[in-house]
């Protein structure tokens, strides 16, 4: 199950807040013998995830009793039940409460043991993507091309959203180099990610909204891996141009380009012009020019491309980010947690800011806007952080405002 009403989902998200992910203890909950008063704020580390059913007749009593003892709310159902993490020794007391119908362990305990619990990366809340999620706007089915080092083909937090992949350089296609560079991906697909970078960016765009890992800006968008970067994080201009052309020919509305160089090339200029003409919204990382003047890289300097600088968790300008008159918008890029083959990592760079904007564009396109209209709205509704235009562009990405969700709070 995963479909919940918007109001239910909002309740869950509020309650979960910014809770940190912790490893979950698993196993039987029957052993609890100590009688612990329900309502304490204890957190001794020995916790279990349980499904709790409460009596609707007692009205507000049941859920409140559970919430008070829970260390974390995992899921709220439309019917009278919650999945929560709570101290193991609180189970017995909870079972004895009149408001509680049952306390059960999860049937899929193994899955819980093996996975990390889903946490909401700060970038998602910072840009208002949480509000989109609560309103049920998920970018459902919108095609987003991640023109990068590929996307891990069997990552549990991405797999459900993977569309077609296409390789212009094959996974581990440079065997000698890839023995010493990149990751140890088994390359089940030729567009598989041998570098981590593409999978990380893909997770920012559209990691699945499930019980593990992270969630992306547009958690139901379709991710297309267009592999143009090889295992060392480097791509040849000819491969990149072919990738951009391919995306345009597929008619996909949004492409995320988390790469660049200080040197413009005519081939990529032409490829971007071709894609823009075909209606693709190209979003690119402005580059990591360390705050120095006029360091926006290519292709972010092209007018046809939406150029993204980076800010940190508190909205301060990221010291690594490029600056210059060609910055259109800024987004979170410092210490971003997202997917990599085999797990999750935190990376920094304008590479990480770029897919926040691409995901946001997918959300807008899912509501019926054209890619060009989406671009205009994203720029027009960005939050002024009070930084100079050469740093923040129009300001910090605010997808909730772009979706007109602000007034509904």
């Amino acid at each position, binding site marked *: 199950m995963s479909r919940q009403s918007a109001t239910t989902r909002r309740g869950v998200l509020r309650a979960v807040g910014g809770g940190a992910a912790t490893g979950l203890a698993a196993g039987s909950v029957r052993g609890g013998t100590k009688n612990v008063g329900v309502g304490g704020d204890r957190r001794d580390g020995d916790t279990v995830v349980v499904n709790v059913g409460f009596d609707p007749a007692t009205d507000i009593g049941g859920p409140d009793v559970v919430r008070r003892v829970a260390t974390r709310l995992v899921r709220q159902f439309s019917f009278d039940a919650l999945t929560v993490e709570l101290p193991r020794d609180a189970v017995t007391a909870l079972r004895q409460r009149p408001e509680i119908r049952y306390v059960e362990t999860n049937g899929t305990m193994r899955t819980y043991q093996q996975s990390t619990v889903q946490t909401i990366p700060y970038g998602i809340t910072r840009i208002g993507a949480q509000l989109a999620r609560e309103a049920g706007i998920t970018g459902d089915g919108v095609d987003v091309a991640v023109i990068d080092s590929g996307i891990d083909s069997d990552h549990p937090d991405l797999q459900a959203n993977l569309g077609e992949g296409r390789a212009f350089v094959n996974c581990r296609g440079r065997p000698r180099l890839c023995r010493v560079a990149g990751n140890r991906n088994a390359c089940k697909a030729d567009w598989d990610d041998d570098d981590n*970078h593409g999978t990380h960016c893909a997770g920012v765009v559209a990691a699945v909204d499930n019980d593990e890992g992270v969630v992306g800006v547009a958690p139901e968008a379709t991710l297309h891996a267009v592999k143009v*970067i090889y295992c060392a*994080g480097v791509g040849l201009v000819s491969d*990149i141009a072919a990738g951009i052309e391919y995306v345009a020919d597929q008619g996909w509305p949004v492409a995320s380009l988390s*790469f*660049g160089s200080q040197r413009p090339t005519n081939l990529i200029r032409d490829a971007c012009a071709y894609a823009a003409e075909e209606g693709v919204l190209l979003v690119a990382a402005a580059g990591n020019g360390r705050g120095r003047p006029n360091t926006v*890289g290519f292709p972010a300097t092209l007018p046809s491309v939406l150029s993204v600088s980076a800010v940190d968790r508190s909205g301060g300008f990221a010291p690594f980010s490029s600056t210059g008159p060609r910055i259109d918008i800024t987004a979170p890029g410092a210490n971003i947690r997202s997917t990599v083959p085999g797990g999750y990592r935190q990376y920094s*760079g304008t*590479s990480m800011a*770029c897919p926040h904007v691409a995901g946001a564009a997918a959300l807008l396109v899912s509501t019926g806007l054209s890619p060009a209209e989406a671009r205009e709205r994203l720029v027009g509704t960005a939050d002024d952080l009070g930084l100079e235009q050469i740093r923040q562009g129009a300001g910090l990405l605010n997808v909730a405002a772009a979706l007109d969700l602000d007034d509904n709070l």
Partner: protein
Amino acid sequence: MLTATLTTTPRDDYVEFELTVENQGDESVTLSFRDARRAEFVVSDAAGDGEVWRWSDGRMFAQMLGSETLDAGESMTFEGVWDDPVPGEYVAIGELAAADADADAETHFSVESV
């Protein structure tokens, strides 16, 4: 302290470059990189007629911060290939692309006409 050595190996229709950076100090050094580029190779005309080839031209780089740690006595080698070189006498420079450390080396080489 970082030292760099550069070797060039002309082949039939390409030239291989290898830049080796060694930490000759007593403590480990962590190098920071602003993007996926770790090194640069630049070839200039030996007669002083300017730059004829640059490895990063025609390449783009993932815009993600990175780092590499070199323990005391450890070295790291970066490779680059120049395809279809024009015969001539050249000077090659290889340099580390770290944001917080410098290491470069220079060498002469020639490409014979085949």
